[in-house]
């Protein structure tokens, strides 16, 4: 299989990640539930993962990192736990349903939401951000990159506006963490939500939130924590406040190893590799008559995604042909990003998304270009 679906999940994982998961499954007890060696080992591994995650994202301290089973869970915690009836929230058309659906849920609970419109290139107008701020505006929730086009949002610029107007800034870095440098302090991010299994190269079932000290989030889940047992409520202190129930310790051990891999490899090297192959793929496929590529490729930096259609062929048919005829794995359809597809005019057709990872090769990209050329003859 020629794997071009890294934006869905990175594959395969670095060897040290799978080794760390296997080792954890054979040696770890349950973190924070006892002080025997197995349990302490789990607690130590998880704490180390918190330290690495905090350092990776410029989060003040490891205790401010709460692990979840994916970015969606973290985003639900951030959005449902931060906004209440009467609050106004600003978001964008670039969002994934992991942001949109929690926002729509808040709308049902009495919040109002404004979406910054994307143009046909998939870009927003930054001036719209301040123009949408009202007295009731409580926060901004947005992605770092569209999972459809790969276009980046300027988090530093948005964070500066949030800070100026004393708004809560929630950032979804699912598509960029592990490739682009992300610093909460520099970007003015109050709550950063990440997934472990995409470009962070960790196992599925991992993710989390990094929270600025002083930001309060109402818990979404209540339950066992191993501490403060007789308290009727979820403990106030982070990260316990957002971590009811047993953590995915085995997965977190893998995530910790993945962060080591990224630090050793250097995300700058990863970005350079992915960007070069993305441009090669873009230049190759955009020359094929009848192929339309979506997104803004004039921008300096963008996530390594090339989404396209061929004439009016349904994206699902083209993706099937790529898989069945050529063994090329892509993602077709609407990518859980309905507003983005509406802005691009592809709500009906969808699009075929090629996404590149650090292990993608030049030969694979050339094979894709050649295969697509044959299909589109």
């Amino acid at each position, binding site marked *: 299989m020629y794997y071009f679906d890294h934006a869905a999940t990175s594959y395969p994982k670095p060897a040290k990640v799978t080794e760390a998961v296997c080792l954890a499954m054979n040696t770890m007890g349950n*973190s*924070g539930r*006892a*002080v025997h060696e197995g349990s*302490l080992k789990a*607690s*130590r591994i*998880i*704490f180390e993962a*918190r330290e690495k995650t905090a350092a990776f994202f410029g989060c003040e301290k*490891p*205790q401010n990192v709460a692990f979840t089973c994916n970015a969606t869970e973290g985003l639900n915690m951030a959005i449902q736990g931060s906004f209440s009836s009467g609050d106004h929230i600003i978001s964008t058309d670039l969002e994934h349903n992991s942001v949109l659906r929690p926002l729509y849920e808040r709308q049902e609970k009495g919040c109002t939401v404004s979406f910054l419109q994307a143009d046909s290139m998939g870009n927003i107008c930054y001036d719209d951000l301040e123009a949408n701020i009202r007295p009731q505006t409580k926060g901004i929730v947005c992605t770092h990159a569209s999972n459809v086009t790969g276009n980046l949002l300027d988090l530093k610029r948005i964070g500066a506006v949030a800070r100026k107007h004393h708004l809560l800034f929630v950032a979804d870095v699912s598509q960029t963490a592990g490739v682009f440098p992300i610093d909460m302090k520099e970007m003015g991010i109050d709550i950063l939500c990440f997934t472990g299994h995409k470009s962070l190269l960790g196992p599925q079932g991992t993710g989390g939130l990094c929270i600025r000290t002083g930001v309060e989030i109402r818990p979404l889940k209540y339950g066992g924590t*191993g*501490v*403060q*047992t*007789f*308290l009727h409520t979820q*403990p*106030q*202190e*982070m*990260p*316990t406040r957002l971590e009811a129930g047993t953590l995915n310790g085995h997965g977190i051990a893998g995530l910790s190893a993945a962060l080591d891999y990224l630090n050793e490899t250097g995300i700058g090297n990863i970005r350079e590799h992915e960007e070069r192959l993305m441009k090669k793929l873009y230049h190759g496929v955009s020359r094929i008559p009848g192929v339309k590529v979506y997104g803004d490729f004039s921008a300096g930096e963008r996530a390594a995604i090339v989404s396209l259609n061929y004439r009016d062929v349904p994206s699902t048919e083209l993706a099937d042909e790529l898989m069945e005829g050529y063994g090329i794995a892509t993602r077709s359809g609407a990518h859980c990003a309905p507003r983005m597809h509406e802005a691009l005019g592809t709500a009906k057709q969808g699009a075929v998304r090629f996404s590149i990872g650090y292990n993608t090769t030049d030969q694979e990209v050339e094979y894709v270009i050649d295969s697509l050329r044959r299909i589109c003859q």
Partner: protein
Amino acid sequence: MREKQERIVITFYTTADAMAMEKAARLHGIDGKSISAPRAVSADCGIAFSSPISEKENVMRLLSESGIEIQGAHELWL
């Protein structure tokens, strides 16, 4: 049962703080270990950090310098 010794025992609100303490103590060469929070000082379960009483000054200095949040500091015979 082992002979009891006087010890300084630190209790925490979270496992993460207990782990932060364990790691910081190791880095600073402070003698001590993670134990179950003694019922005598906390009915809340969780992990505590226990050091010989001779390390009390070092433990308290470390806590003050590191900013690790604690539930309490107790002198106990364990």
